[in-house]
């Protein structure tokens, strides 16, 4: 055999395995990112992933209550670091408090949403409804996360590709959130469809719909002081809409193996309201004392009646009239504001028709406190209405000016982002 005859054979043998494909292994025990999203169902999984991450951001260690009612003392959460937060010692070394100062979970939501937008934009197989819904939900999730971040920490870094890491002022951050919400509002449906193409109340209640995104956008516009825009947004969207098209938005509690997530976030075993506080908020005769609470006089506490324990409501339908009332009042439409407030506050003992421009704010804040208890908005409302020192007595007006109402940054945020604590927390 001549050697030269073998050369082509050797060349072929050597060349065969050298192509890149032969060195690419498709793993059968894990899911790689490339090429995964090839059906509407898989993209929907990513949407659900965003909601699950939002659930973790809000419910891990009862975070949404600590950022909201519980921090102001309106709800008690039976955990051993409760007093630390009530004392506003938010730079405490307690590991749960430290975890609450960490914003990573909210950025997980933003990351999910941005991934989802990429995926949706690059998939040609979605129907128009699916494309609009998934894109709208991604934008709504992102908007929600930025809005929470800005309300909890004040000034926050951007996680958008164009200016990753750039520090946004509170106004810039909420403005960014509102642009996403505005875009989402244009494409989200009133009611979501189930797999059979039938409108489903159950699904609509745990995912973003037009009602939810409009509510969220109105909150953002009011936060920014864009009162006329809020009024136009709310009335333009909700006027003349049949009641059965409206929906609340809440976080569904499903199966999750992550142990830091409470199975029943508002469950009576952990979350309660002291009777003194109940009496102070809901005067005798207010029907909501009994419609919203189970009162246990022996234990001297009240616990929340949960209509649907599987959903943690964040943007309930009942807030719509409160928001319309606020937008109308802030745009000098006092009569319309009073009508909306009265309509919203069914069960109250007060007569809101007698309100004046000067007394309206307190009444509205009072009703928001009563009606939205458990949704985690209390401290944000106090900030927005400039009432933090009145209800959180640990802080003076000067402290609030320095940033006391916001949460301190976690050590990891300070270390790896070279961010600085605000004036108040840097001295703690």
């Amino acid at each position, binding site marked *: 055999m001549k050697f030269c005859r073998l050369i082509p054979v050797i060349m072929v043998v050597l060349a065969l395995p050298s192509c890149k494909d032969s060195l690419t292994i498709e793993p059968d025990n894990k899911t790689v990112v490339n090429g*995964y999203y090839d059906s509407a169902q898989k993209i929907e999984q990513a949407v659900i992933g965003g909601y699950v991450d939002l659930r973790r951001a809000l419910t891990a260690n009862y975070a949404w209550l600590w950022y909201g009612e519980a921090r102001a003392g309106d709800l008690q959460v039976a955990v051993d670091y409760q007093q630390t937060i009530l004392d506003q010692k938010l730079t405490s070394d307690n590991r749960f408090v430290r975890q609450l100062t960490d914003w990573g979970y909210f950025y997980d939501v933003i990351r*999910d949403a941005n991934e989802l937008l990429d995926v949706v934009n690059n998939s040609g197989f979605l129907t128009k409804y699916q494309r609009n819904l998934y894109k709208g939900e991604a934008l709504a999730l992102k908007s929600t996360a930025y809005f929470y971040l800005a309300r909890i920490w004040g000034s926050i870094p951007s996680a958008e590709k164009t200016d990753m890491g750039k520090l946004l002022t509170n106004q810039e951050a909420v403005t960014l959130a509102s642009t996403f919400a505005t875009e989402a509002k244009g494409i989200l449906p009133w009611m979501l469809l189930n797999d059979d193409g039938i409108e489903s109340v159950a699904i609509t209640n745990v995912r973003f719909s037009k009602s939810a995104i409009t509510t969220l956008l109105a909150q953002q516009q009011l936060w920014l002081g864009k009162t006329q825009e809020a009024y136009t947004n709310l009335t333009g969207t909700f006027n003349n809409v049949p009641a059965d098209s409206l929906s609340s938005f809440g976080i569904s509690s499903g199966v999750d193996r992550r142990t830091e997530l409470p199975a029943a976030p508002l469950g009576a075993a952990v979350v309660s309201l002291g009777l003194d506080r109940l009496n102070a908020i809901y005067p005798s005769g207010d029907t909501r004392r009994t419609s919203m609470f189970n009162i246990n006089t022996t234990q001297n506490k009240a616990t929340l009646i949960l209509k649907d324990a599987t959903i943690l409501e964040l943007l309930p339908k009942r807030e719509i009239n409160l928001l319309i009332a606020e937008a109308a009042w802030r745009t000098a439409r006092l009569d319309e504001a009073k009508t909306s407030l009265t309509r919203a506050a069914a069960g109250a003992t007060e007569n809101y028709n007698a309100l004046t421009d000067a007394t309206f704010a307190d009444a509205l804040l009072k009703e928001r406190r009563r009606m939205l208890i458990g949704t985690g908005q209390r401290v944000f409302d106090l900030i927005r209405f400039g009432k933090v020192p009145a209800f959180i007595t640990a802080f003076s007006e000067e402290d609030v000016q320095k940033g006391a109402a916001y949460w301190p940054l976690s050590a990891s945020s300070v270390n790896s*982002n070279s961010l600085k604590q605000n004036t108040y927390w840097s001295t703690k």
Partner: protein
Amino acid sequence: MKLSPVIIWRPIFLFIAFLGMAADIYAQDTLKADSVVTANRGGIENILSGNIAGLRIKNWSGTPGAQAVINLRGLSLDPTSKSTMPLILVNGVPLIASPSDINGLNPLSYYTADQIDRIEVIREIDRLAAYGVQAPNGAINIVVKEGKPGAIHVNANAFAGANFLQNMDSGKDAFYNFNTGARHAVYGDGGFINAQNLIVDGSGDYGSYLFGLTNHQDKGYIKGTDFGRQSLFLNARYNITKKFSAHFYNNFALANRNGRYAGEFNREMLLPVVNDEGFMMDKNRNVAVLSSMRLAYVFNDAFKLSSVASLSYDASSRDAYVPSDILGGKIYSLSATLKRQLITLKTSLDYLHSFGDDLKLNMTIGNELRTNDDRLTSVDGSRSLESGGSDFVKVVTGYNASQTNAFSNHDVEKIVSFYGTWQWNYKEDLDVNMVLRADGSSLYQDKWALYPSIGVHYDLKRILNVPVKAEVAYGKTGMLSRPDVYRGQLSAYGDYFGGNELGIGMLYPAFADAKSVDVYQLDLGLAFRVLPRLNIAINYFNKDYKNFTYQRYQPNIRGVDYVFETGGSLGLSGFELGLAGKWFDARNFSWITNFNIAAYQNKVNTLPAAINNTSIAYLGNLSKGDAVTSLTAYEAGKVKVIGNSEPEAFGGLNNTIRYKNISASFTASYAWGGKVVAESFNSNYYADLVGNTFPVKATETPYYYSSTDVNGRTTYQGIRAVEHLSFIRLNKAALTYHFGAALKRVVAIKDLQLFLRGDNLITITKYGGVNPEENITGVRRKDLGLTGTPLPSSLVLGLKLVL
């Protein structure tokens, strides 16, 4: 049976000749298996122990079938990582050599010393680079024996003896000094150890053959932890034509070890842990095969083509059951299987060319395919007796998923390589070796990496008339970074509403820059003959490891829990000195000595910024120049380096003396300068209860570890002592009587030897425990994680027969 004429002294001459070869100028690189004392314990690494400069064999556990830590100029970010292990080859094909993760049985125990011809240790970069990313930390090639000329030869040997613990002091034993009652229940009176080997071989024009079967049983020292191994092997070469030959090698092995709860199953359990251990079961079973087929074709004097395909397969299983009296009313069972396979195909073309009389070139080009495929499945579960369990039921089936865990994993990895070696020889004095290798790995998006190296070897004997050889080599290899991260990974978050919908999100994003660790190595060597009977070899090397892959935690704005990045660099350098002396070599008396010593230093060159947010935060207390293997602890609230777990120097001494028919050999190994941190069994405090200060008692050292428990409370763990691990150990010793003269008239017997052999006979050390090498990480933790069982001594009497 045709028998060759009996020459009584021939075996002894062969014996001496082998020793003479061992004392050759390359003594440090090749070890003839017949020239050294073999060990009673299974595991080929025990033969090498103390015999090769720079090869550290750390016998950390006395459990039979456990693999010693093997390190040959190896370093990685994690000193306990398997990645520091050298590549192990058998006849040049790679072997799955690391112990299985589920039962820890040692694949190097599948072979016996009797079937090994020699062991080559490869560590100079201009030879190592030819193995590319497979061998960043050296390579050890086990070359097995082939059939000797003649129709048939029979070689049989057997030995039997016992393990024993010398002067066993429960106060010294890492496990039982806080549970002496358990010690009496668990330690035996000395476990039986025995082995039988039978090898038949021959060769002729047709080729050669050698086959054998072996049995090795070691009852260890802890009751019920007996280890057994049986193997069957064949090494055959067949000359199909004059130019075309086939070489087939196969080693099939079964290994098993029974385990016992105490000190093995889980050492972190609360006391008292040992009772009579009724119903305890821990069965470990391995089935392994190494098979290779080499085809070689010689075209002419210049061209040769060879191709070798190999399969290394190791299936290990573990079935364990823990009864209720140990787990406080619960029973627990586990069944796991890990199947590992490694397939390689290597094809190469050799070309020999002479450029005139002075300059010659030996060129090889080839390619190599390597595929690893590991599958793991396991099921475990527990049940309390109250919910229907029974001590007599040894398999738990959970009522629901929360009682039973099932796990399955599958990892595949491929490497495709092309390589070329060019060996230039000028006037037989000057050798220049050039190696270029390209490795493509399935682990990375950018698959290919190039590894060049060059070495110059100069023999000065002819021009300077001095018997000195000098060498210098420099090159680059790589160390694989695991796992496959370049495509990112999605993770399921669990059911969302109604149990219908799965939430999916990113576990980590794609890391396109994933690549191998770069290893740059410089070698300098000098070998010379000081006296006619004394050879000395001195090597210096310096290795730089750059660009490790690690995780950076992102509790932050990137929105993922971690991302991967590369960075950091470590350095390892050292001297190795080997001395081979043949002091006497007369007809009735000979004396041969081999001495070796190595002094290594590893250090941190650079570490990533903000290291505390990375997966290598445990190195965060080290600064540039500190040893990677530093031991750090708190003292008065500040972290400081309190020692180095690696010794300053280590090595061995080997002497063989023969007087007439009696020969005696021993191998000692030693190390000095390293430290061991021993945690105290009874100084563990909540920091707030002791006023955040330490020490609390006068008997404690000022050093302590600080950690946070599940409730977020800071805990101080006191350190009882920082001990020296310096030791010298009489590793192996043998006394052999050759019945040469007495068997003159017995025609059929070529040689008969009676030997008495001991392992681990004497250890001189100041270390407070039983075995100075028992702590893998240099820390004797309170829970004894990564600390081995006592290393027993053993003494056996054996007979070797050659027909």
